Protein backbone atom coordinates (compact mmCIF):
# COMPACT_ATOMS: atom_id res chain seq x y z
CA UNK A 1 0.00 0.00 0.00
CA UNK A 2 1.42 3.41 -0.95
CA UNK A 3 1.54 5.91 1.90
CA UNK A 4 2.69 9.02 0.08
CA UNK A 5 3.04 10.52 -3.38
CA UNK A 6 6.73 9.54 -3.67
CA UNK A 7 5.81 5.87 -3.15
CA UNK A 8 2.86 6.16 -5.53
CA UNK A 9 5.08 7.55 -8.30
CA UNK A 10 7.76 4.96 -7.58
CA UNK A 11 5.26 2.10 -7.85
CA UNK A 12 3.96 3.41 -11.19
CA UNK A 13 7.51 3.80 -12.53
CA UNK A 14 8.74 0.41 -11.33
CA UNK A 15 5.67 -1.37 -12.74
CA UNK A 16 5.83 0.78 -15.87
CA UNK A 17 2.13 1.61 -15.56
CA UNK A 18 -0.18 4.58 -15.01
CA UNK A 19 -0.94 5.96 -11.53
CA UNK A 20 -4.51 4.81 -12.20
CA UNK A 21 -3.31 1.21 -12.47
CA UNK A 22 -1.52 1.39 -9.10
CA UNK A 23 -4.75 2.59 -7.51
CA UNK A 24 -6.85 -0.10 -9.23
CA UNK A 25 -4.52 -2.89 -8.08
CA UNK A 26 -4.43 -1.58 -4.52
CA UNK A 27 -8.22 -1.38 -4.44
CA UNK A 28 -8.47 -4.99 -5.60
CA UNK A 29 -5.99 -6.09 -2.92
CA UNK A 30 -7.59 -4.16 -0.05
CA UNK A 31 -11.22 -5.01 -0.81
CA UNK A 32 -10.81 -8.42 -2.46
CA UNK A 33 -13.06 -7.23 -5.29
CA UNK A 34 -12.45 -8.14 -8.93
CA UNK A 35 -11.12 -5.69 -11.48
CA UNK A 36 -14.51 -5.76 -13.20
CA UNK A 37 -16.34 -4.87 -9.96
CA UNK A 38 -13.98 -2.03 -9.12
CA UNK A 39 -14.36 -0.62 -12.65
CA UNK A 40 -18.13 -0.87 -12.63
CA UNK A 41 -18.32 0.88 -9.24
CA UNK A 42 -16.24 3.75 -10.63
CA UNK A 43 -18.33 3.76 -13.80
CA UNK A 44 -21.41 4.28 -11.63
CA UNK A 45 -19.73 7.27 -9.97
CA UNK A 46 -18.85 8.65 -13.41
CA UNK A 47 -22.50 8.35 -14.48
CA UNK A 48 -23.62 10.29 -11.39
CA UNK A 49 -21.07 12.99 -12.28
CA UNK A 50 -22.35 13.17 -15.88
CA UNK A 51 -25.95 13.49 -14.73
CA UNK A 52 -25.07 16.21 -12.22
CA UNK A 53 -23.27 18.29 -14.86
CA UNK A 54 -26.18 17.86 -17.24
CA UNK A 55 -28.64 18.94 -14.59
CA UNK A 56 -26.54 21.95 -13.58
CA UNK A 57 -26.10 23.11 -17.17
CA UNK A 58 -29.87 22.99 -17.60
CA UNK A 59 -30.13 25.40 -14.63
CA UNK A 60 -30.80 24.77 -10.94
CA UNK A 61 -31.55 27.00 -7.96
CA UNK A 62 -30.75 26.25 -4.32
CA UNK A 63 -33.41 26.39 -1.59
CA UNK A 64 -31.79 29.45 -0.04
CA UNK A 65 -31.70 31.19 -3.41
CA UNK A 66 -28.02 32.05 -2.85
CA UNK A 67 -26.72 30.00 -5.77
CA UNK A 68 -27.76 28.61 -9.13
CA UNK A 69 -27.75 29.61 -12.78
CA UNK A 70 -24.08 30.60 -13.05
CA UNK A 71 -23.15 27.49 -15.06
CA UNK A 72 -25.81 28.51 -17.60
CA UNK A 73 -24.41 32.05 -17.80
CA UNK A 74 -20.89 30.75 -18.39
CA UNK A 75 -21.97 28.38 -21.17
CA UNK A 76 -23.83 31.23 -22.92
CA UNK A 77 -20.72 33.40 -22.59
CA UNK A 78 -18.50 30.69 -24.13
CA UNK A 79 -20.90 30.32 -27.04
CA UNK A 80 -20.53 34.02 -27.89
CA UNK A 81 -16.83 33.29 -28.46
CA UNK A 82 -15.52 36.53 -27.01
CA UNK A 83 -13.73 35.09 -24.00
CA UNK A 84 -10.27 36.05 -22.77
CA UNK A 85 -8.91 32.81 -21.29
CA UNK A 86 -9.08 29.44 -23.08
CA UNK A 87 -12.24 27.62 -24.03
CA UNK A 88 -11.21 24.39 -22.24
CA UNK A 89 -10.62 26.27 -18.99
CA UNK A 90 -13.96 28.05 -19.19
CA UNK A 91 -15.73 24.81 -20.07
CA UNK A 92 -14.12 23.22 -16.99
CA UNK A 93 -15.22 26.20 -14.91
CA UNK A 94 -18.83 26.00 -16.12
CA UNK A 95 -19.02 22.25 -15.49
CA UNK A 96 -17.45 22.51 -12.04
CA UNK A 97 -19.98 25.22 -11.19
CA UNK A 98 -22.82 23.12 -12.66
CA UNK A 99 -21.94 20.21 -10.36
CA UNK A 100 -21.60 22.34 -7.28
CA UNK A 101 -24.85 24.17 -7.99
CA UNK A 102 -26.60 20.80 -8.09
CA UNK A 103 -24.94 19.92 -4.79
CA UNK A 104 -26.09 23.18 -3.21
CA UNK A 105 -29.63 22.42 -4.38
CA UNK A 106 -29.54 19.06 -2.51
CA UNK A 107 -29.28 17.15 -5.79
CA UNK A 108 -27.47 13.85 -6.28
CA UNK A 109 -23.69 14.12 -6.67
CA UNK A 110 -20.60 12.03 -6.14
CA UNK A 111 -18.37 13.38 -3.35
CA UNK A 112 -14.94 14.00 -4.97
CA UNK A 113 -13.31 14.02 -2.45
CA UNK A 114 -16.14 15.82 -0.62
CA UNK A 115 -19.53 17.21 -1.62
CA UNK A 116 -18.41 20.83 -1.22
CA UNK A 117 -15.56 20.18 -3.66
CA UNK A 118 -17.44 17.78 -5.93
CA UNK A 119 -17.24 20.05 -9.01
CA UNK A 120 -13.52 20.25 -9.71
CA UNK A 121 -12.64 16.71 -10.82
CA UNK A 122 -15.69 16.12 -13.06
CA UNK A 123 -15.58 19.73 -14.34
CA UNK A 124 -12.04 19.33 -15.63
CA UNK A 125 -12.62 15.76 -16.85
CA UNK A 126 -15.61 16.68 -19.03
CA UNK A 127 -13.81 19.74 -20.38
CA UNK A 128 -10.58 17.97 -21.36
CA UNK A 129 -12.72 15.19 -22.84
CA UNK A 130 -13.43 17.45 -25.83
CA UNK A 131 -9.73 18.05 -26.33
CA UNK A 132 -8.25 14.60 -25.63
CA UNK A 133 -11.13 12.33 -26.77
CA UNK A 134 -10.56 9.65 -24.11
CA UNK A 135 -12.25 6.24 -24.19
CA UNK A 136 -14.77 5.40 -21.46
CA UNK A 137 -12.07 3.32 -19.80
CA UNK A 138 -9.65 6.27 -19.83
CA UNK A 139 -12.31 8.48 -18.24
CA UNK A 140 -12.73 5.94 -15.46
CA UNK A 141 -8.94 5.81 -15.08
CA UNK A 142 -8.97 9.61 -14.66
CA UNK A 143 -11.07 9.08 -11.55
CA UNK A 144 -8.73 6.38 -10.21
CA UNK A 145 -5.73 8.70 -10.69
CA UNK A 146 -7.57 11.52 -8.91
CA UNK A 147 -8.49 9.05 -6.19
CA UNK A 148 -4.89 7.92 -5.73
CA UNK A 149 -3.71 11.46 -4.98
CA UNK A 150 -6.76 12.18 -2.83
CA UNK A 151 -6.05 8.97 -0.93
CA UNK A 152 -2.60 10.28 0.03
CA UNK A 153 -3.98 13.66 1.12
CA UNK A 154 -6.82 12.09 3.12
CA UNK A 155 -4.45 9.77 4.99
CA UNK A 156 -1.62 12.25 5.60
CA UNK A 157 -3.49 15.53 5.94
CA UNK A 158 -7.24 16.05 5.62
CA UNK A 159 -10.00 16.46 3.04
CA UNK A 160 -12.45 18.06 5.47
CA UNK A 161 -13.14 21.78 5.57
CA UNK A 162 -14.03 21.60 9.25
CA UNK A 163 -10.69 19.97 10.01
CA UNK A 164 -8.36 21.71 7.57
CA UNK A 165 -10.09 24.65 5.86
CA UNK A 166 -11.10 24.91 2.20
CA UNK A 167 -7.51 24.19 1.15
CA UNK A 168 -8.25 20.63 2.32
CA UNK A 169 -11.42 20.40 0.23
CA UNK A 170 -11.24 22.43 -2.99
CA UNK A 171 -7.43 22.49 -2.67
CA UNK A 172 -7.23 18.70 -2.54
CA UNK A 173 -9.81 18.36 -5.33
CA UNK A 174 -7.86 20.75 -7.57
CA UNK A 175 -4.59 18.91 -6.91
CA UNK A 176 -6.25 15.57 -7.65
CA UNK A 177 -7.72 16.92 -10.89
CA UNK A 178 -4.41 18.47 -12.00
CA UNK A 179 -2.62 15.15 -11.58
CA UNK A 180 -5.31 13.25 -13.50
CA UNK A 181 -5.42 15.80 -16.34
CA UNK A 182 -1.64 15.57 -16.64
CA UNK A 183 -1.75 11.79 -16.86
CA UNK A 184 -4.62 11.78 -19.36
CA UNK A 185 -2.73 14.26 -21.54
CA UNK A 186 0.25 11.89 -21.69
CA UNK A 187 2.34 13.21 -18.79
CA UNK A 188 4.53 10.90 -16.71
CA UNK A 189 3.64 9.85 -13.14
CA UNK A 190 6.30 12.29 -11.90
CA UNK A 191 4.71 15.11 -13.93
CA UNK A 192 1.32 14.25 -12.45
CA UNK A 193 2.84 14.66 -8.98
CA UNK A 194 4.35 18.02 -10.00
CA UNK A 195 0.93 19.21 -11.21
CA UNK A 196 -0.60 18.20 -7.88
CA UNK A 197 2.15 20.00 -5.95
CA UNK A 198 1.88 23.20 -8.03
CA UNK A 199 -1.91 23.30 -7.66
CA UNK A 200 -2.01 22.61 -3.94
CA UNK A 201 0.72 25.20 -3.28
CA UNK A 202 -1.58 27.80 -4.78
CA UNK A 203 -4.49 26.74 -2.63
CA UNK A 204 -2.60 26.83 0.69
CA UNK A 205 -4.16 28.91 3.41
CA UNK A 206 -7.61 28.83 1.83
CA UNK A 207 -10.12 29.21 4.66
CA UNK A 208 -13.51 27.55 4.93
CA UNK A 209 -15.94 30.41 5.57
CA UNK A 210 -19.33 29.47 4.13
CA UNK A 211 -21.92 32.23 4.36
CA UNK A 212 -24.74 31.14 6.69
CA UNK A 213 -22.88 27.84 7.02
CA UNK A 214 -24.23 26.73 3.64
CA UNK A 215 -22.14 24.95 0.98
CA UNK A 216 -22.89 27.75 -1.50
CA UNK A 217 -21.02 31.03 -1.04
CA UNK A 218 -18.08 31.02 -1.72
CA UNK A 219 -17.96 27.24 -2.37
CA UNK A 220 -19.45 27.25 -5.87
CA UNK A 221 -17.01 29.86 -7.18
CA UNK A 222 -14.11 28.19 -5.40
CA UNK A 223 -14.89 25.03 -7.35
CA UNK A 224 -14.67 27.16 -10.51
CA UNK A 225 -11.28 28.54 -9.56
CA UNK A 226 -10.07 25.14 -8.37
CA UNK A 227 -10.83 23.77 -11.83
CA UNK A 228 -9.04 26.66 -13.55
CA UNK A 229 -6.08 26.29 -11.20
CA UNK A 230 -5.86 22.56 -11.98
CA UNK A 231 -5.89 23.16 -15.74
CA UNK A 232 -3.09 25.73 -15.59
CA UNK A 233 -0.97 23.61 -13.24
CA UNK A 234 -1.38 20.59 -15.53
CA UNK A 235 -0.17 22.68 -18.48
CA UNK A 236 2.79 23.89 -16.38
CA UNK A 237 3.76 20.33 -15.42
CA UNK A 238 3.41 19.16 -19.04
CA UNK A 239 5.68 22.05 -20.05
CA UNK A 240 8.34 20.53 -17.80
CA UNK A 241 7.98 22.98 -14.92
CA UNK A 242 8.55 21.41 -11.51
CA UNK A 243 7.69 22.40 -7.96
CA UNK A 244 10.73 23.26 -5.83
CA UNK A 245 8.89 21.85 -2.82
CA UNK A 246 8.11 18.13 -3.32
CA UNK A 247 4.43 17.14 -3.42
CA UNK A 248 4.49 15.25 -0.09
CA UNK A 249 6.00 18.25 1.68
CA UNK A 250 3.31 20.50 0.21
CA UNK A 251 0.66 18.11 1.54
CA UNK A 252 2.34 18.16 4.94
CA UNK A 253 2.48 21.97 4.89
CA UNK A 254 -1.23 22.03 4.05
CA UNK A 255 -1.96 19.78 7.02
CA UNK A 256 0.01 21.95 9.43
CA UNK A 257 -1.57 25.15 8.13
CA UNK A 258 -4.98 23.55 8.68
CA UNK A 259 -4.11 22.67 12.26
CA UNK A 260 -3.06 26.21 13.09
CA UNK A 261 -6.14 27.75 11.47
CA UNK A 262 -8.57 29.20 14.02
CA UNK A 263 -11.86 27.33 14.26
CA UNK A 264 -13.70 30.50 13.11
CA UNK A 265 -12.19 29.82 9.67
CA UNK A 266 -12.99 26.11 9.55
CA UNK A 267 -16.58 25.68 8.41
CA UNK A 268 -18.19 27.22 11.47
CA UNK A 269 -19.56 30.29 9.66
CA UNK A 270 -17.98 32.43 12.39
CA UNK A 271 -15.32 34.21 10.35
CA UNK A 272 -14.15 35.29 6.89
CA UNK A 273 -16.86 35.95 4.29
CA UNK A 274 -19.50 34.47 6.60
CA UNK A 275 -18.78 37.26 9.13
CA UNK A 276 -18.97 40.16 6.65
CA UNK A 277 -21.95 42.50 7.03
CA UNK A 278 -23.54 41.10 3.87
CA UNK A 279 -22.76 37.54 4.94
CA UNK A 280 -24.50 38.15 8.25
CA UNK A 281 -27.47 39.81 6.55
CA UNK A 282 -27.92 36.86 4.23
CA UNK A 283 -27.69 34.47 7.17
CA UNK A 284 -30.32 36.41 9.10
CA UNK A 285 -32.59 36.51 6.05
CA UNK A 286 -32.27 32.78 5.26
CA UNK A 287 -32.81 31.53 8.80
CA UNK A 288 -35.10 34.32 9.96
CA UNK A 289 -32.84 35.14 12.91
CA UNK A 290 -32.58 38.80 14.00
CA UNK A 291 -29.03 40.10 13.48
CA UNK A 292 -28.65 41.26 17.09
CA UNK A 293 -29.24 37.74 18.33
CA UNK A 294 -26.37 36.29 16.31
CA UNK A 295 -23.10 35.39 17.98
CA UNK A 296 -20.29 37.88 17.37
Amino acid at each position, binding site marked *: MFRNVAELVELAVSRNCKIAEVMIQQEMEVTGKSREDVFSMMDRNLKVMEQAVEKGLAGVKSHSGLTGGDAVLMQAYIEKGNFLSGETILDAVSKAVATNEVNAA*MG*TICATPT*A*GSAGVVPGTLFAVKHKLHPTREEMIEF*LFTSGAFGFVVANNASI*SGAAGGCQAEVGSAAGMAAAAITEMAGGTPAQAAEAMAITLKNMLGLVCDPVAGLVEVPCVKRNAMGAANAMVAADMALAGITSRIPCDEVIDAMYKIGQTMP*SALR*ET*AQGGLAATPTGRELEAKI*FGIPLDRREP
Partner: protein
Amino acid sequence: MKYRSVFDIIGPVMIGPSSSHTAGAARIGRVARSLFGREPKWATVSFYGSFAKTYRGHGTDVAIIGGILDFDTFDERIKTSLQIADANGMKITFIEEEAVADHPNTARVIIGDDQGQLELVGISIGGGKIEITELNGFLLQLSGNHPAILVMHNDRYGAIAGVANVLAKHAINIGHMNVSRKEKGQLALMTIEVDQNIEIGVIEELKTLPNILQVTKIAE
Protein backbone atom coordinates in the same frame (compact mmCIF):
# COMPACT_ATOMS: atom_id res chain seq x y z
CA MET B 1 -4.53 4.62 7.45
CA LYS B 2 -7.93 6.19 8.08
CA TYR B 3 -9.01 5.83 4.43
CA ARG B 4 -8.52 2.41 2.82
CA SER B 5 -10.62 2.44 -0.34
CA VAL B 6 -10.49 4.71 -3.38
CA PHE B 7 -14.28 4.91 -3.04
CA ASP B 8 -13.80 6.75 0.25
CA ILE B 9 -12.22 9.47 -1.92
CA ILE B 10 -14.26 9.23 -5.15
CA GLY B 11 -17.63 8.73 -3.48
CA PRO B 12 -20.05 8.27 -1.87
CA VAL B 13 -22.88 9.01 -4.26
CA MET B 14 -25.05 11.22 -2.10
CA ILE B 15 -27.65 13.92 -1.71
CA GLY B 16 -25.91 17.32 -1.34
CA PRO B 17 -24.70 19.61 0.01
CA SER B 18 -22.02 18.35 2.41
CA SER B 19 -20.24 15.00 2.62
CA SER B 20 -19.27 15.60 6.26
CA HIS B 21 -22.53 17.18 7.36
CA THR B 22 -25.05 15.38 5.16
CA ALA B 23 -23.68 11.98 4.02
CA GLY B 24 -21.62 11.48 7.20
CA ALA B 25 -24.60 12.37 9.37
CA ALA B 26 -26.84 9.97 7.45
CA ARG B 27 -24.32 7.19 8.03
CA ILE B 28 -24.06 7.93 11.76
CA GLY B 29 -27.85 7.78 12.05
CA ARG B 30 -27.98 4.56 10.06
CA VAL B 31 -25.40 2.81 12.26
CA ALA B 32 -27.50 3.76 15.32
CA ARG B 33 -30.60 2.35 13.62
CA SER B 34 -28.78 -0.79 12.59
CA LEU B 35 -27.54 -1.40 16.15
CA PHE B 36 -30.95 -0.67 17.63
CA GLY B 37 -32.41 -3.14 15.16
CA ARG B 38 -35.79 -1.48 14.69
CA GLU B 39 -37.32 1.92 14.06
CA PRO B 40 -37.23 3.88 17.32
CA LYS B 41 -40.19 5.79 18.74
CA TRP B 42 -38.09 8.76 19.70
CA ALA B 43 -34.70 10.28 18.90
CA THR B 44 -32.65 12.93 20.67
CA VAL B 45 -29.74 14.21 18.63
CA SER B 46 -27.05 16.51 20.05
CA PHE B 47 -24.76 18.36 17.66
CA TYR B 48 -21.28 19.61 18.60
CA GLY B 49 -18.77 21.94 16.91
CA SER B 50 -19.34 22.68 13.25
CA PHE B 51 -22.38 20.35 13.31
CA ALA B 52 -23.98 22.56 15.99
CA LYS B 53 -23.19 25.80 14.17
CA THR B 54 -24.31 24.85 10.67
CA TYR B 55 -26.60 21.84 10.76
CA ARG B 56 -29.71 23.59 9.44
CA GLY B 57 -28.08 24.82 6.25
CA HIS B 58 -26.33 21.53 5.60
CA GLY B 59 -29.37 19.36 6.10
CA THR B 60 -27.50 17.54 8.89
CA ASP B 61 -30.77 17.29 10.80
CA VAL B 62 -32.72 15.73 7.92
CA ALA B 63 -29.76 13.49 7.02
CA ILE B 64 -29.26 12.04 10.50
CA ILE B 65 -32.98 11.35 10.85
CA GLY B 66 -32.90 9.87 7.35
CA GLY B 67 -30.19 7.52 8.58
CA ILE B 68 -32.25 6.61 11.63
CA LEU B 69 -35.07 5.77 9.19
CA ASP B 70 -32.55 3.42 7.48
CA PHE B 71 -32.04 5.56 4.34
CA ASP B 72 -28.74 5.38 2.43
CA THR B 73 -26.69 8.53 1.57
CA PHE B 74 -28.20 8.79 -1.92
CA ASP B 75 -31.82 8.12 -0.92
CA GLU B 76 -33.98 11.01 -2.14
CA ARG B 77 -36.29 10.50 0.86
CA ILE B 78 -33.56 12.09 3.04
CA LYS B 79 -34.90 15.49 1.97
CA THR B 80 -38.30 14.81 3.55
CA SER B 81 -37.10 12.60 6.44
CA LEU B 82 -38.50 14.90 9.16
CA GLN B 83 -42.00 14.66 7.67
CA ILE B 84 -41.64 10.89 7.22
CA ALA B 85 -40.49 10.48 10.85
CA ASP B 86 -43.41 12.62 11.99
CA ALA B 87 -45.86 10.54 9.97
CA ASN B 88 -44.38 7.40 11.58
CA GLY B 89 -44.97 8.94 15.00
CA MET B 90 -41.30 9.40 15.86
CA LYS B 91 -40.63 12.19 18.37
CA ILE B 92 -37.47 14.13 17.53
CA THR B 93 -35.40 16.58 19.58
CA PHE B 94 -32.29 18.42 18.39
CA ILE B 95 -29.83 19.94 20.86
CA GLU B 96 -27.10 22.42 19.92
CA GLU B 97 -24.28 21.71 22.36
CA GLU B 98 -21.90 24.44 23.40
CA ALA B 99 -19.30 21.96 24.71
CA VAL B 100 -16.16 21.47 22.64
CA ALA B 101 -15.87 17.88 21.39
CA ASP B 102 -12.60 16.21 20.35
CA HIS B 103 -13.64 16.32 16.70
CA PRO B 104 -15.31 19.37 15.08
CA ASN B 105 -18.09 17.26 13.52
CA THR B 106 -19.58 15.23 16.35
CA ALA B 107 -23.11 13.98 16.96
CA ARG B 108 -24.59 12.14 19.95
CA VAL B 109 -27.64 10.09 19.05
CA ILE B 110 -29.99 8.65 21.64
CA ILE B 111 -32.84 6.58 20.24
CA GLY B 112 -35.36 4.40 21.96
CA ASP B 113 -38.82 2.93 22.44
CA ASP B 114 -40.75 1.07 25.16
CA GLN B 115 -38.33 -1.88 24.90
CA GLY B 116 -35.09 0.02 25.42
CA GLN B 117 -32.72 2.70 24.26
CA LEU B 118 -29.35 3.15 22.64
CA GLU B 119 -26.80 5.96 22.88
CA LEU B 120 -24.09 6.44 20.31
CA VAL B 121 -21.48 9.09 19.49
CA GLY B 122 -20.28 9.42 15.91
CA ILE B 123 -17.79 11.71 14.20
CA SER B 124 -17.73 12.68 10.56
CA ILE B 125 -14.09 12.77 9.50
CA GLY B 126 -14.48 14.03 5.92
CA GLY B 127 -15.63 12.85 2.51
CA GLY B 128 -18.62 11.04 4.03
CA LYS B 129 -16.46 8.77 6.16
CA ILE B 130 -17.43 8.30 9.79
CA GLU B 131 -16.21 6.73 12.98
CA ILE B 132 -18.32 5.60 15.91
CA THR B 133 -16.43 6.59 19.04
CA GLU B 134 -18.84 5.69 21.81
CA LEU B 135 -21.67 3.20 22.30
CA ASN B 136 -23.75 3.11 25.49
CA GLY B 137 -20.84 4.65 27.36
CA PHE B 138 -18.16 2.36 25.92
CA LEU B 139 -15.32 3.91 23.93
CA LEU B 140 -14.74 2.24 20.59
CA GLN B 141 -13.62 2.66 16.99
CA LEU B 142 -15.98 1.60 14.25
CA SER B 143 -15.70 2.85 10.69
CA GLY B 144 -19.18 1.81 9.58
CA ASN B 145 -17.68 0.69 6.25
CA HIS B 146 -17.38 -3.02 7.00
CA PRO B 147 -19.76 -5.58 8.41
CA ALA B 148 -19.20 -5.70 12.14
CA ILE B 149 -20.46 -7.42 15.25
CA LEU B 150 -20.71 -5.95 18.70
CA VAL B 151 -20.50 -8.38 21.59
CA MET B 152 -21.46 -7.31 25.09
CA HIS B 153 -19.83 -9.67 27.57
CA ASN B 154 -18.59 -10.13 31.12
CA ASP B 155 -14.94 -9.19 31.50
CA ARG B 156 -13.63 -12.74 32.12
CA TYR B 157 -10.75 -14.76 30.70
CA GLY B 158 -11.67 -16.86 27.67
CA ALA B 159 -14.62 -14.73 26.58
CA ILE B 160 -12.69 -13.19 23.67
CA ALA B 161 -11.08 -16.49 22.67
CA GLY B 162 -14.49 -18.15 22.59
CA VAL B 163 -15.86 -15.60 20.14
CA ALA B 164 -12.71 -15.74 17.98
CA ASN B 165 -12.96 -19.56 17.87
CA VAL B 166 -16.53 -19.50 16.61
CA LEU B 167 -15.62 -16.98 13.91
CA ALA B 168 -12.61 -19.09 12.89
CA LYS B 169 -14.78 -22.21 12.69
CA HIS B 170 -17.05 -20.42 10.18
CA ALA B 171 -14.03 -19.13 8.20
CA ILE B 172 -14.80 -15.50 9.06
CA ASN B 173 -11.76 -13.23 8.96
CA ILE B 174 -11.39 -10.41 11.50
CA GLY B 175 -10.22 -7.10 9.99
CA HIS B 176 -10.22 -4.97 13.11
CA MET B 177 -10.99 -5.73 16.73
CA ASN B 178 -11.34 -3.61 19.81
CA VAL B 179 -12.19 -4.47 23.41
CA SER B 180 -13.47 -1.85 25.77
CA ARG B 181 -14.54 -2.12 29.40
CA LYS B 182 -15.79 0.32 31.97
CA GLU B 183 -14.18 -1.38 34.94
CA LYS B 184 -12.04 -4.50 35.40
CA GLY B 185 -14.20 -7.60 35.83
CA GLN B 186 -17.43 -5.77 34.90
CA LEU B 187 -19.27 -5.28 31.63
CA ALA B 188 -17.14 -5.19 28.47
CA LEU B 189 -17.73 -4.70 24.76
CA MET B 190 -15.97 -6.36 21.84
CA THR B 191 -16.14 -4.56 18.50
CA ILE B 192 -15.18 -6.83 15.63
CA GLU B 193 -15.00 -5.70 12.00
CA VAL B 194 -15.08 -8.62 9.58
CA ASP B 195 -14.63 -9.10 5.84
CA GLN B 196 -18.01 -10.64 5.01
CA ASN B 197 -21.57 -10.52 6.25
CA ILE B 198 -22.25 -12.84 9.16
CA GLU B 199 -25.15 -15.31 8.96
CA ILE B 200 -27.75 -15.17 11.70
CA GLY B 201 -26.84 -18.73 12.73
CA VAL B 202 -23.35 -17.59 13.70
CA ILE B 203 -24.83 -14.79 15.82
CA GLU B 204 -27.07 -17.31 17.59
CA GLU B 205 -24.08 -19.57 18.21
CA LEU B 206 -22.09 -16.68 19.71
CA LYS B 207 -24.97 -15.90 22.05
CA THR B 208 -24.76 -19.39 23.60
CA LEU B 209 -21.12 -18.94 24.68
CA PRO B 210 -20.36 -18.46 28.42
CA ASN B 211 -20.18 -14.83 29.59
CA ILE B 212 -21.66 -13.49 26.35
CA LEU B 213 -24.61 -11.22 27.10
CA GLN B 214 -25.64 -9.69 23.79
CA VAL B 215 -24.55 -9.91 20.15
CA THR B 216 -25.58 -7.39 17.49
CA LYS B 217 -24.47 -7.23 13.89
CA ILE B 218 -24.06 -4.30 11.56
CA ALA B 219 -24.26 -5.08 7.85
CA GLU B 220 -22.16 -3.11 5.37
